């Protein structure tokens, strides 16, 4: 929403939106019909890709909570060869403390050529055997190579990228001792000292002896309320390859809240990175950076702690993106069934956010699904963000037609959701056009988007419990041009997470932030990918340090590298 917005346009907008809602039935059907005329836009190419990975939960009837939480992934360029590689975390048949390592570790797939991956787990050294939940990526040692942090139920692991195709486990030497039940994590430079700090969400104090049942009295996975919630962890990068736990002094550990999802951005526009944390059955947190190493939770004040009805929901995955195209970062959180996913529209001008799930069309349509991973990208390059949600229940339910999961997961599997942005911040169901992505019925968790084949549009990877990780190629017709922007420091060579990019598309401004952490327990490529119908020629960049620079885009339909200090300074 524009910075100089007056109440009148807001009112008008509301009126327009109300009209849209009233006309929604007709509109939905018209739009869907229009979309339906196109061929399937997301095509499952897993079988020929060489990625043969199944996340094993080792569920054998005991319904232990960790078995249904995991299955995150990381999509990143591990070897700097310009294409994306894939890291998939694995479950474990043993709870931590038993000692023996799993025979099935996490796996790393290196992309050799478009859509051709090879299993490079052994040579990379990335085969952690812990009870994997998720992963995040970032160059913590500023050597230009992307490192990876693996969150586990049990001890987490930090792998340093040696730059030669191999990684080393530096957890101990980095001073990291994170136990417990980690979920999503995020690298971000919280203190603007030029290195990446690390935020690790922690779920609950799981106790295997606590048994839960469904309402029908059958053994069922416990919800978070069955256990004491955990406190999140914030590790400060000391710049010498080690980290210091500053959870308490930063204020992050002041709240225990069963956290699962995280994303980071500058939510209050002060140039400092903030964190939004989606909590399961607890109020969400928006940790606003106080610029002195401390954070204050302003979620309630800014209207993103609860839903429209003032209820706590089961926050899982989360994304921060300008979904309504008003140049401010909105939030979207995925939830349990019988709740809806929630779209928090950023009202700008420090007016906070408003739950616009209903008006946007994103709410009621998700009531019947349990959402986890979520990504927003411009599927057909028309300048607005479309939404994709990976679904899968946490409570057994009737089998959905077409389920591909083995028992008992056939009772947990659900189709994924796709929403196409109509351009006004209203979304319509796109399941008919995206084909495989929404027709496969599995218990999905992780979801990442990236231009896997380098053809200028974003493709998808989904991880599933007791089902194959799936790769979807984007075959959508293109409505505009694309630009992939990497924002780096030439000296360090690493992507500068938290960099905010603005470009124009006709008379509107598209803003995007470089981040590797969002979705659910998943790392996404640290680049910005923009589609535009009427692309502009300038890029405005706000670096994590707060400096602003302007660059020329040059031609579109290519990748550009923006180096800090090499653009035209803007006050």
């Amino acid at each position, binding site marked *: 929403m524009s910075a100089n917005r007056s109440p009148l346009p807001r009112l008008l907008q509301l009126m327009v939106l109300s009209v849209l*809602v009233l006309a929604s039935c007709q509109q939905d059907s018209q739009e869907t019909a229009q979309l339906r005329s196109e061929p399937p836009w997301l095509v499952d190419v897993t079988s020929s890709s060489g990625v043969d990975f199944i996340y094993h939960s080792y569920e054998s009837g005991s319904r232990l909570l960790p078995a249904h939480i995991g299955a995150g992934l990381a999509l990143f360029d591990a070897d700097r060869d310009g294409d994306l590689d894939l890291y998939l975390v694995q479950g474990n048949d043993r709870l931590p403390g038993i000692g023996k390592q799993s025979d099935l570790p996490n796996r790393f797939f290196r992309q050799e050529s478009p859509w051709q991956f090879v299993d490079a787990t052994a040579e990379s050294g990335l085969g952690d055997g812990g009870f994997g939940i998720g992963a995040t990526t970032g160059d913590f040692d500023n050597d230009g190579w992307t490192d990876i942090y693996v969150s586990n139920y049990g001890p987490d692991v930090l792998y340093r990228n040696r730059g030669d195709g191999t990684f080393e486990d530096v957890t101990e030497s980095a001073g990291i001792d994170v136990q417990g039940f980690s979920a999503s994590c995020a690298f971000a430079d919280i203190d603007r000292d030029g290195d990446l700090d690390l935020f690790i969400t922690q779920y609950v104090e799981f106790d295997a002896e606590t*048994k839960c049942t469904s309402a029908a*009295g059958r*053994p069922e996975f416990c919800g978070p309320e069955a256990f004491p919630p955990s406190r999140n962890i914030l590790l400060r990068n000391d710049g010498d390859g080690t980290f210091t736990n500053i959870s308490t002094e930063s204020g992050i550990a002041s709240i225990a809240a069963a956290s699962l999802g995280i994303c980071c951005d500058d939510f209050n526009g002060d140039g400092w990175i903030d964190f939004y944390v989606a909590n399961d059955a607890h109020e969400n947190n928006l940790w606003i950076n106080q610029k002195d190493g401390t954070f204050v939770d302003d979620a*309630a004040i800014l209207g993103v702690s609860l839903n429209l009805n003032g209820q706590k929901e089961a926050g899982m995955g989360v994304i921060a993106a300008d979904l309504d195209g008003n140049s401010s970062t909105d939030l979207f959180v995925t939830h349990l*069934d019988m709740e809806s996913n929630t779209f928090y529209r950023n009202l700008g001008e420090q007016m906070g956010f408003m739950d616009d799930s209903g008006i946007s069309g994103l709410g009621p349509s998700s009531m019947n699904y349990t959402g986890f991973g979520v990504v927003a990208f411009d599927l057909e390059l028309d300048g607005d963000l479309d939404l994709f949600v990976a679904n899968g229940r946490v409570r057994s339910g009737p089998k959905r037609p077409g389920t591909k999961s083995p028992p008992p997961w056939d009772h947990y599997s659900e189709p994924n959701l796709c929403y196409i942005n109509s351009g006004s911040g209203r979304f319509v169901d796109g399941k008919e056009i995206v084909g495989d992505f929404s027709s496969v019925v599995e218990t999905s968790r992780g979801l990442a988007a990236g231009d896997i084949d380098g053809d200028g549009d974003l493709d998808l990877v989904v991880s599933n419990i007791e089902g194959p990780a799936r790769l979807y190629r984007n075959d959508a017709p293109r409505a505009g041009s694309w630009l992939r922007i990497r924002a780096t420091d030439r000296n360090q060579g690493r992507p500068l997470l938290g960099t905010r990019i603005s470009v124009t598309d006709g008379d509107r401004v598209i803003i995007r932030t470089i981040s590797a952490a969002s979705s659910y327990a998943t790392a996404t490529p640290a680049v910005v990918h923009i589609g535009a119908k009427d692309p502009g020629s300038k890029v405005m960049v706000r670096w994590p340090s707060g400096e602003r620079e302007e660059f020329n885009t040059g031609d579109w339909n290519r990748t550009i590298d923006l180096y800090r200090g090499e653009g035209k300074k803007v006050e």
Partner: protein
Amino acid sequence: MSREFRSRSRVATLLLLIVFASLSARNTFAQQIDAARFIVEGMETPVIRVIEGCIRRIDKEPQSYRRYYELAATLDAHELLAEATTYYQKALTLKPDHLQSLYNCGLTYEFLGRPEDAKKSWDQIISKDPQHPQTNFRIGEFYFRKGALDEALACFQIFIASQPDSAIGHSRIGRTLLQLDRPAESLVELEKVLQMSPLDRPTLVTISQALLRAGNREKAQEIQQQLKDDDFLSDSLILLDPLRTEVAIRAVNSTSCIARAENHEKKGEYASALMEYELAAAGQPNNARIAHRSGKVLVALGNSASAIEYFDRAIALDSTFVDAYHNRGVARQIAGIRAAAVADFRKVLELEPGHPFATEQLQKLGEL
């Protein structure tokens, strides 16, 4: 054949037909109930018993809408939602305007992600009773979630007309008005909520947002400070919904029983809590936690002898259950079985070295 005989024969045939007809009618629905659809392996015994009981009663009274409603409500209470809708519909076949079936069937549709079907069900109630408060509330919610705010507002206003003291009703109106960008009116409604539930945190959150939008940043900040400082704020708004409660109380699965037991415990109703824990234990006989909780409420009831028996059971089921040893120690101490109490506190320390309470107790008993 005489006329009389023919006549008698016709009567007999008619009687036979009536008997057969009644027999077949008796089984029309009953035959369709395939218990295996919803009674599956691993289900807790009390749940199976209530479902089977409902089916047997339908078999005895196949023309009773009430019996179908009972089965539907029982299935609904145990979240067997799709099956529940089937039997709500059967009840409605026998009694098309049965309020409870229409209302709860609507809710079940909603939970199943079929909001339009839910609305259809509720619309049938409204067609007979346009002012029905809870149904208007539900339809209001339906519109609210869809973003059809004017319709939602109208429904909530009908609800509040008959339930003027409902905090949640005013809350919904306040929130809808805020969503409609009418913060001043919203504040009026939200203030009413606060008068009824002064410690309701979500309402304070919304008030602070409404104040911001109304341009009263100073007051908004005051409330924001209260939200940060006040530890006694909670979520307190509930919809008084007797039609739904009728379903909810049918749940006899252990999770529901434990939830009810905890609620009783909070109110100091320990004997009621014990009863619920006993029902929970019937569903999960090998759950050490339930036995332990029963023991704890028995201590609260002053019955340490029985409490010890429950703690014994908890420990037999989980020999590393620290809390059970600890609480058995307490119960034994109360019962005057000092040596056994000391043994329990020692076991606690063995399992959890440094356990503060066990240490304190042993010190008190002169054993440390």
